[in-house]
């Protein structure tokens, strides 16, 4: 049994801590919306509120916990969309005709240079605020990152001996892709997915910070960061709470991504422990 890299363990440890904190607030979703104007901006520790309360008296920790599924859900959805689209189109570009390849790469270029904010605002205007809108926008703008990597690696794998042998043996293209090319890409894809998830989380937070995508009053972390700005002097915990949550989650994800990359990379396969 290969020993797990320390990064993976550290990342998992952080995640577990975060989850444990979340579980101290089983009623988070209800409490997140509970306005209590008598206790607005109370410091951490008062009135049994671990992280204090915000400008409307809502329990900050409850809001952070309640905000997690929203932010994480958007990130997960966007990542899934990006991976599915990116891998499919990347493989298509590698295997397809010159026209297909050129077309896909041009579209990829376009997707990457399209201004994210503009796309998000336009999408929100057309589809309304909400997680689904953001998922679509983020996914549709970032699949190209996967496509390019998959394209490059698929090209390289195609020239490897066992693939050439399969092709000569008459195996059809889709089978080759599925049985030979994809498994060779999987290790790096997994790590990349984790990193991408972290990036999507940050992007979703940035958008909700600017007020795009998150429904009004929703406890999205980015929106909470934006709301904290007028009260920075009296209530610094309004900033610290969501900031730590976001940074810790991203850190955990980065660690896990690095750990997975180490664990799955071929150079590890032969190591004796």
């Amino acid at each position, binding site marked *: 049994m290969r020993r797990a890299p320390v990064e993976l363990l550290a990342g998992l440890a952080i995640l577990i801590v975060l989850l444990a904190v979340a579980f101290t607030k089983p009623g988070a979703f209800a409490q997140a919306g509970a306005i209590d104007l008598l206790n607005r901006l109370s410091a951490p520790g008062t009135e049994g509120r671990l992280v204090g309360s915000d400008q409307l008296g809502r329990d900050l920790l409850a809001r952070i916990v309640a905000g997690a599924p929203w932010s994480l859900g958007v990130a997960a959805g966007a990542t899934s969309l990006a991976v599915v689209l990116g891998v499919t189109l990347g493989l298509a570009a590698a295997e397809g005709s010159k026209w297909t390849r050129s077309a896909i790469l041009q579209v990829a270029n*376009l997707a990457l*240079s399209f*201004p994210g904010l503009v796309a998000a605002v336009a*999408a929100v205007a*057309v589809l309304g605020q909400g997680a689904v809108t953001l998922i679509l926008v983020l996914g549709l703008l970032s699949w190209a990152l996967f496509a390019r990597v998959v394209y490059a690696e698929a090209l390289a794998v195609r020239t490897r001996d066992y693939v050439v042998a399969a092709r000569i043996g008459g195996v059809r293209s889709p089978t080759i892709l599925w049985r030979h090319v994809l498994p060779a890409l999987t290790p790096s894809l997994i790590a990349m997915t984790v990193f991408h998830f972290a990036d999507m989380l940050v992007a979703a937070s940035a958008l909700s910070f600017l007020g795009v995508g998150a429904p009004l009053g929703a406890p999205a972390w980015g929106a909470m960061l934006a709301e904290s700005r007028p009260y920075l002097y009296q209530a610094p915990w309004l900033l610290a709470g969501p900031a730590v949550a976001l*940074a810790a989650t991203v*850190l955990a994800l980065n660690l896990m991504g690095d750990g997975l990359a180490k664990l799955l990379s071929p150079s590890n396969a032969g190591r004796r422990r």
Partner: protein
Amino acid sequence: MGTAVEISTRKVLSASRPGNGLRFARAAGKRCLELVLLLVTLSTLLFFLLRASGDPAVTLAGADADAETVQAIRVAYGFDRPLFVQYLSYMSHLARGDFGLSLANSEPAMKAVLWAMPATVSLALLAMLLTVVIASPIGAWLGAAPDRPERRATAVILYILQGTPGFVVALVLIQIFAVQAGWLPAIGRSGLASWVLPTVSLSLFLAPKLARVLAANVGEAFKEDYVRTARAAGAGEGQILVRHVLPNALLGSIALVGSQFAFLLGGVVVIETIFAWPGLGRLLVQSTLSLDFPVVQAAALAVAVLVFAAGMLTDLLFLAADPRLRTQGDA
């Protein structure tokens, strides 16, 4: 995040092998064509997308305008014409460099963009400079002896810093230095002090990654045979670091610096918003949220051009810095 730089860099590099001059000109020309294609597609998409995202006439007229006023505005701005006609007129104007007038203040849209560009570019340059200045010594120090305890601890700190989103860093810095301590202004671009927080926020976000990449390059370079040669010729570790290892390590980091610079030019919307920095990012946010189409289009295209320029600059830097590309090999 400016990663189109890397693919295009590879293309230019492979075009600049033996057969230089003409091949390079052709590759550059090809990329300019790509840029034009990109700009055309971008502006087309923007056109339709923006039109779909709301009725500008309504926005302009205001919340409680009556239908007549809205219609009048619509006619005045030409929003009542068929979409396709509007598009053709728009594209033909674009081809002549006319981006139309801002819906907010009736000034030429390009004027607002040109007015905002220096702020973004200067911030990007300064932040990039600071990033390189911070990251180089740290990266060299880390890479030279990565296993010592204090360097491991530094590597951990860098790791955490790199993962923290840029705008979170900015907010925390504002909290500490502007709000609580009152030393530095948090908003605007007036006076020397107001440059500090935005630049430092961006650098603190980008420097860790550059430092880590540099450290990795330094570590790798130390294992190379030419370091063994230098040692056998009597060079001390310090001389080896400065004269042999760092030039190679920095060369290997140019790609990252290029993509970071492209990111600075095109992606610091949130930072500019936080600091109310009068640059392209903030212009983009304001114009997008207020549906000021001409300005949005002008700003988005300007950003695309800037990012492309950053890419070309990186390619040139590669060519200039790596002797293997500058000259042809005989071997």
